[in-house]
């Protein structure tokens, strides 16, 4: 049994030596060719299989990477959108504040800038809450304006805040006149949240849609010449003493964020300081 093992080993070694000797004497190519006939198809198959397997794996990894990248990019896009919104918001605020500052600097009035911090928009009352109050020496009935025109008046002063009655409040009335014709009248708010101009029929015969209304400045509450709105429609009531005109407000009360409170003397004509008045 032991001899068989050694005989086998001896045979194998002898076969190897024979193979090596044959190769050294130039007979190796035939043996190699014979091996190649057997091994080449196996190698080709294995190479294809490994390539396919690793190709699949690579595809899976790529897909996984793409997915992860996609998620990352989505998050980045989301972040950039938020940043973009912030930039837009800041830019808008900057623009509004610049306009407000420009108006404040040009107006021949003592004014105090304020920020709208709350809105009461129910219909019964239409008001804004501004972050200027008793501590800022804001007097009651102070006129409140914006670069676009008149907003209303302060009706209540509290510590830290003031309540501004907006022109569209149902109890709000402001003396006004048509800029083009000087037709006097009263601008009233109504519960629908719109403005109407009440004027005497004999005075307002020539009022047209698109005419600009500005404050009359009588009574000393509002400076003269602050835009209130433009005539949208005229309600001709025939022989009635008073006629009415629907007014489109110069200020979008729902969107106004920064205001000026006219804290000083209001006896000035401001027509030239507002675009509508120019």
């Amino acid at each position, binding site marked *: 049994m032991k001899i068989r*093992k050694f005989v086998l080993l001896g045979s194998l070694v002898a076969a190897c030596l024979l193979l*090596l000797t044959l190769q050294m004497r130039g007979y190796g190519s035939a043996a190699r060719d014979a091996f190649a006939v057997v091994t080449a198809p196996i190698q080709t198959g294995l190479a294809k299989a490994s390539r396919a397997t690793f190709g699949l794996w690579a595809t899976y990894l790529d897909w996984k990477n793409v997915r992860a990248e996609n998620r990352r990019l989505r998050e980045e896009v989301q972040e950039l959108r938020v940043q973009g919104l912030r930039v837009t918001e800041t830019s808008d605020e900057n623009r509004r504040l610049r306009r407000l500052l420009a108006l404040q600097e040009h107006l021949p009035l003592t004014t105090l800038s304020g920020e709208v911090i709350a809105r009461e928009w129910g219909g019964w009352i239409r008001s804004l809450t501004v972050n200027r109050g008793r501590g800022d020496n804001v007097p009651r009935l102070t006129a409140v304006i914006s670069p676009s025109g008149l907003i209303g008046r302060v009706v209540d002063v509290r510590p830290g805040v003031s309540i501004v009655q907006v022109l569209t409040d149902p109890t709000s009335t402001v003396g006004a006149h048509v800029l083009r014709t000087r037709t006097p009248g009263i601008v009233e708010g109504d519960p629908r949240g719109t403005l109407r101009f009440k004027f005497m029929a004999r005075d307002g015969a020539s009022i047209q849609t698109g005419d600009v209304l500005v404050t009359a400045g009588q009574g000393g509450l509002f400076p003269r010449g602050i835009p209130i709105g433009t005539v949208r429609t005229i309600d001709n009531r025939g022989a009635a003493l008073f006629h009415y005109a629907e007014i489109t407000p110069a200020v979008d009360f729902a969107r106004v964020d920064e205001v000026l409170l006219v804290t000083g003397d209001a006896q000035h004509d401001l027509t030239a300081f507002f675009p509508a008045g120019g």
Partner: protein
Amino acid sequence: MRALLVLTIAGGSVAHATLTPLVSIAGVTPDLPLIMVVLLALRRGPEFGSLSGFVTGLLQDAAGGGLIGVQAMTKAVIGFSIGAAGARLRVSQPLVQVPGLVVLTIAEGLARFALLQIFRFPAPFGELMMYVVLPQALCNGFVGAAVVLALAWAQTVRGRLEGSRA
């Protein structure tokens, strides 16, 4: 079982040549057929060890493009030696497996070099030992130990499964 063994030996050797780049670790390729021959020789004895070593080496030679017969002879001798000494070797310990495979790889490298010299095949000894044989020996040591541990684990699992079935 025999068919599976033949497939393992033949397929493993050819696969080693084909899939070499995929199994290299830090640029060093373990000699998987050598590890396979050692394991088979330990389990099945010197005859099977020498025969499997011969076939494996022959296929490796053919696939590699060198002198056919060099690795066939070295691996046949290694398979025989390990198979013959198998009963006296304690190969279940990684502390034996790693240095054992390192020594075997170096011995095979030296034998290959000697054969190449005898048959006047050019081979730089120092560089071969430094950049090929020694790194491969270390690699074989660790990969071989891992394979032995994996086989032992597989056997344990198999034993448990069979036990639970019974």
